[in-house]
């Protein structure tokens, strides 16, 4: 191969290289300036943007739920508290073999199919380092067993969480209510910020009515988190403000006595202090265990409660509307005196039935043979129907409506509970408005004995009785007595101002009606004279029997053959002592048949208990 001479000009090449190196150097400097301008853009112009992103990365704001306020009765008995409930939590990153662990745990605690399925779902969407709840509401025994076996299960922990607990369970279920998990509808209603971190909300009863007091204010904690979301340290913290404790007018012991006294019946008892409006007891039977609802009631249990014909979830005291029956008579009598439709000594002959002019229909007295000559006192004591047919006829429906309305019939009492019903006090306008029919005279008569259209809740009866016993002074029935702000020394007593009183033209008329009610218990032929025996003070009352269904004219009426569901409701309203009343009791025993034999003794038991407890306290 021919060797071609390589002509290299070294000086020229060095010169060429120098030029190229200079170009390259300039190029490098330019590129460095590009990089620098990128840094200026990121670090100077976009600094606040990236700084925010960095903070968002780093800082995780987590809400701290406030502790819910407690609920006490008037004597400091706890009705609703926050108790640690034990739950089993598994931390996946610490568990080597999840299926084996679950299997072994299954031998110690009860793990059913549903529990495992739910856990599986949670496992998939939770962080590995977070405790995932496997079982809630562990029993003491299970907790103990787990403690013994703890060494076998790394990553398995028993954690105590605060959960609402109702120590008196069934006794207070309707009044105190219960909390449950916040649902979609409630999410829209509440202030979401304040409920961040809160899982439960008052669903019913006082828990719901005083939700704002009980809940408290949410707190916050800024945590520094790493990329996995693990919280590394607390940067700052605004502690939550716990909810206020609320003190009720209720007397837990009296409530339980009332509950026991009514046991065996469905129905309601309301006990009040007439001179303040404080509700001492409010019983509705049958009841339920509110604790079932706190951690989510099982479908089976809920179905059972919901579908029971006795409707245990229904608060009869404020929602149950019953015909007041004869318990309305003292009020009608008072109306008769006030409207001068009758004099208090004036007598009416009761022959066992009553006839309206130009009408065939017989309005029967509960006593077929009649009561003979009846004055106002006897009409209440013996609960003569004919007397009230005549009185109602004389007063007319307009005046009856007008007078009874002053005692709160047909109107909500405004008690501090949601869902209260107004009952029904019929009038011509009402019938025209709702049924588009004219009022018949016969309807006036049966309104006079508390039948027909008229309906009242047990609370309304108690409230009306309180007004009567206090001779016209009206106090709002209520359950809240004081609010205790945690950390403050003194409770704040809630003042429930008295309402516009019922004014009579003749004050003495109060006495005539009340005297009639005293005769119910202490008169020779009083319908509840058996209940009045052995009292060392005098009480006043009125029995009532409310027809559940109408009985056809002339039909014989055989209690035994009527199914229990169709039996009359037994009612009794009372207060004691009659001169300076300190307690009012209204009782309704559904299908109890007779106010005198069923409802009145229940009242007596309650009053006895109350007197016993308040002896020496000057019956305060």
């Amino acid at each position, binding site marked *: 191969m021919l060797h071609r001479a*390589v*002509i*290299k*000009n*070294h000086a020229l*090449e*060095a010169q*060429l*290289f*120098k030029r*190229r*190196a200079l170009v*390259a*150097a300039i190029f*490098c*400097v330019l*590129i*460095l300036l*590009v*990089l*620098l301008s*990128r*840094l*200026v853009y*990121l*670090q*100077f112009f*976009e*600094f606040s*943007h*990236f*700084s925010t*992103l*960095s*903070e968002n*990365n*780093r800082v995780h704001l987590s809400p701290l739920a406030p502790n819910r306020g407690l609920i006490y009765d008037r004597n400091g008995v706890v009705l609703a508290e926050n108790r640690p409930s034990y739950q089993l939590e598994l931390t996946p990153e610490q568990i080597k073999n999840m299926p084996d662990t679950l299997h072994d745990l299954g031998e110690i605690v009860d793990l059913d199919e549903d529990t495992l399925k739910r856990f599986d779902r949670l496992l998939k969407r939770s962080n590995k380092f977070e405790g995932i709840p496997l079982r809630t509401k562990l029993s003491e025994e299970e907790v103990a067993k787990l403690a013994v076996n703890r060494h076998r299960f790394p990553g398995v922990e028993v954690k105590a969480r605060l959960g609402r607990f109702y120590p008196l369970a069934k006794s207070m279920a309707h009044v105190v209510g219960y909390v449950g998990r916040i649902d979609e509808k409630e999410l829209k209603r509440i202030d979401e910020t304040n409920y961040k971190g809160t899982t439960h909300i008052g669903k019913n009863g006082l828990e719901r009515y005083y939700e704002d007091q009980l809940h408290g204010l949410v707190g916050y904690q800024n945590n*520094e*988190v*790493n*990329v*996995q979301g693990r919280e*590394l340290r607390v940067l700052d913290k605004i502690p939550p403000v716990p909810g206020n404790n609320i003190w009720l007018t209720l007397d837990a012991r009296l409530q339980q006595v009332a509950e026991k006294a009514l046991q065996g019946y469905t129905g309601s008892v309301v006990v009040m202090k007439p001179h303040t409006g404080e509700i001492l007891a409010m019983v509705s039977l049958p009841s339920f265990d509110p604790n079932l609802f706190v951690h989510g009631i099982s479908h089976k249990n809920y179905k059972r409660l919901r579908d029971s014909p006795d409707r245990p979830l229904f608060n009869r005291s404020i929602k149950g509307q019953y015909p007041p029956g004869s318990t309305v008579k003292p009020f009608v009598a008072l109306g008769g005196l006030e409207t001068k439709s009758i004099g208090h000594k004036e007598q009416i002959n009761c022959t066992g039935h009553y006839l309206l002019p130009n009408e065939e229909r017989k309005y029967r007295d509960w006593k077929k043979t009649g009561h003979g000559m009846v004055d106002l006192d006897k009409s209440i004591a013996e609960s003569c129907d004919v007397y009230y047919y005549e009185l109602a006829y004389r007063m007319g429906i307009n005046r009856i409506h007008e007078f009874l309305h002053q005692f709160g019939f047909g109107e909500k009492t405004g008690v501090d509970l949601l869902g209260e019903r107004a009952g029904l006090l019929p009038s011509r306008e009402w019938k025209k408005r709702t049924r588009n029919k004219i009022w018949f005279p016969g309807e006036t008569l049966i309104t006079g004995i508390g039948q027909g259209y008229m309906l009242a809740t047990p609370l309304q009866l108690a409230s009306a009785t309180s007004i009567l016993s206090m001779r016209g002074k009206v106090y709002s029935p209520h359950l809240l007595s004081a609010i205790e702000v945690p950390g403050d020394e003194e409770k704040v007593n809630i003042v429930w101002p008295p309402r516009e009183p019922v004014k009579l033209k003749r004050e003495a008329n109060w006495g005539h009606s009340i005297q009639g009610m005293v005769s119910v218990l202490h008169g020779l032929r009083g319908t509840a004279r058996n209940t009045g025996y052995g009292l060392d003070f005098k009480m006043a009352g009125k029995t009532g029997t409310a027809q559940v269904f109408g009985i056809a004219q002339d039909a014989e009426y055989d209690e035994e053959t009527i199914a229990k569901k169709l039996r009359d409701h037994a009612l009794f309203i009372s207060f004691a002592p009659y001169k300076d009343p300190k307690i009012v009791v209204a009782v309704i025993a559904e299908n109890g048949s007779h106010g005198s034999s069923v409802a009145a003794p229940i009242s007596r038991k309650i009053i006895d208990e109350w007197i016993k407890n308040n002896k020496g306290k000057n019956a305060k």
Partner: protein
Amino acid sequence: MSKIQGKQYFPSFSLRLMRVLHLDHALMLGIGALLLVGLIVLYSAGDESSALIHRQLTRIALAVVVMLIIAQIPSSTLRSWSPWMYIVGVILLVLVLLMGDVGKGAQRWLDLGFIRFQPSEMMKLVTPMMVAWYFAEKPLPPSWRTLLVAAVLILVPTFLIARQPDLGTSLLIFAAGFFVIFLGGLSWRLMFGMCVLAASMLPVLWHFMHDYQRGRVMTLLDPGRDPLGAGYHIIQSQIAIGSGGVYGRGWLNGSQSHLNFLPEQSTDFIFAVFAEEFGLIGGLLLLILYGFIIIRGLMIAVQGQDTFARLLGGSLSLTFFVYLFVNVGMVSGILPVVGVPLPLISYGGTSMVTLMAAFGMLMSINSHRKLWSK
């Protein structure tokens, strides 16, 4: 420069030592400063792990030894070795493709029994050596024929490495070879033509790219496309840099890195840690330091004794710059994610040794010229 002053007036101990060891004083200062900065940032990026620092120090020591050894070899010797090293290197690359270990989804390592070896690293040095060797024999500016041979010499290792696949390294090797051609006097017209050609070839290149590589390009264009997947690296590193601001959050105070939001924070993304903690001012100083080293390298090259020395020195200096540009460009989000470390700062042994070996060559070019010319 320093050698003249030292020799004539106050030949300090360190200067005399430098001369004896064939080292360049200015370059050593720059490299030393970078290594120190690297250790400081690494301490923070590695969650203050002293074990990590110890391992890095060991590597630095090894790399410095390699640099010292190479600095003693005259560039004429390096030149004579070039073709043999190139041939061995290409054979090893083929072997890697045939029987290499797979690590992180790519075949890069060759297990020689006693040592695990990455031939592609060696090729970063050998490829420019080879092209420089070839050019040294030819009249410059190069003829068409010379250019064609040079292109083959560059593209063979480039494609072999791209097949592993290791896009970052093949890019660096291509750049190193290209710089030799450029410095050798590639005509501007031709260069312009090649740029046009390369641009028109982009769709074809796209076609041959792996899915993950395409993803990286797509991610660069729109990081929000997949914020938790491919875009995550870019987004998080930009957050780290941006949140550093002008003054930085201070050493050990970068939350992005300390809370592990930054990926690969000790290796390829270490610049984000630096920028987060030392801010724009730190970034500016760091870029100036790099610029100083590169300019010093080019100056050494210009003064090279022969064409081979000049071309090799210039190419190595510019390749060092490419490292910097690709890495910082990637971390700051103006280039796609390519696995190129921040030179002399990123944690990791192989690139450290290669870079220091390159500096050893620069030192040799510098000092042996002096001796030779005497």
